[in-house]
């Protein structure tokens, strides 16, 4: 067998070992929400290493760094996110970096809102059958209950 024929299975094997960058990203967000501070840095770095252009990761890491007082690194990360996704990220990043503008654009005092547009289709949606009971013998039996789905 010629060596070049080994390339395809080799690439498939390597592809199979590739880390899904969303997994360390989930860990990073969870760690941040648990207020674990610098201990979360490793998850952000793992994500960036797995996919340096993953949507939102640099904005996430930048906010995390900013909250720890690391303004310089945060500014660099925000810059990378804005370079990668200029139209999607610029507005929210600008607001975060300029709190005065954020307050100016703040929502009005909260009143109970009845969003009729959202409620109408839900009320018309059919109600599905109740969840099936998990079978006693099956391993990790899954039962799902679905209702109120937009058509």
């Amino acid at each position: 067998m010629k060596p070049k024929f080994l390339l395809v299975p080799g690439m498939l094997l390597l592809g199979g070992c590739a880390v899904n960058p969303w997994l360390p990203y989930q860990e990073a967000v969870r760690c941040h929400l648990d207020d674990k501070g610098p201990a979360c840095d490793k998850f952000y770095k793992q994500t960036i290493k797995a996919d340096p252009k993953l949507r939102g990761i640099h904005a996430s890491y930048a906010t995390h760094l900013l909250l720890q007082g690391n303004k310089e690194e945060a500014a660099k990360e925000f810059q990378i996110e804005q370079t990668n996704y200029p139209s999607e990220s610029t507005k929210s990043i600008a607001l975060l970096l300029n709190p005065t503008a954020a307050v100016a654009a703040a929502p009005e005092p909260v009143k109970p809102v009845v969003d009729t547009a959202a409620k109408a289709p839900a009320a018309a949606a059919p109600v599905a059958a109740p969840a099936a009971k998990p079978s006693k013998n099956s391993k990790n039996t899954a039962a799902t209950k679905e209702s109120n789905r937009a058509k």
Partner: protein
Amino acid sequence: MRSNLRILALGFAALALVGCAPKVYTTADFERLKPKTVLVLPPENTTSNTEVLQKSYPFVFSELAQRGYYAIAPELALQLFRANKLEDPGQINSLPTSKFNDVFGVDAVLRTKVTEWSSKYIVISSTVNVGFDMELLDTKTGTLLWRHSQTLSKSPDNSNGNPLAMLINAAVNAALTKYEPIASENARLMTLTIPQGQYYVKK
């Protein structure tokens, strides 16, 4: 004859694969408005469990983003809400959708309610239930683009023939309940019914 069998086998395999994939739900409004950027709001807890936000938000956010949307970073979103003295997910969820367009510049918001986060232990079996109610709304018009409610229940396998072992297994499983894998799976199955966004990458 042999090639016919091959075609038949391929046909069955294709049918089996299609049968496993959750059905994608779309509407004329969704096709017309085609959101690109989404703000995943912090999930609103309607259960008695107090750790639901920390445990469910990362999954809901990442599963939606993996459908091919640019989802605003949760850390950034939460910080902006805090800056505006908005800490309660219920309060955030009740804001008019247009405010999210004004502040974040996003095309759509995903509102999530955690409807179930519980484990049931009945003598020799235990079941973990995680339920979400999700809706995707256009921020400019408030139009409902997609909605789905689902509760996922999973029972660990306790059956090994020995009643005493089954009893102990069920008690141990109930005590060491891990909700995260079930929350993640439920969020994944639910978001698979959202049409793919422009950044979707086939795995």
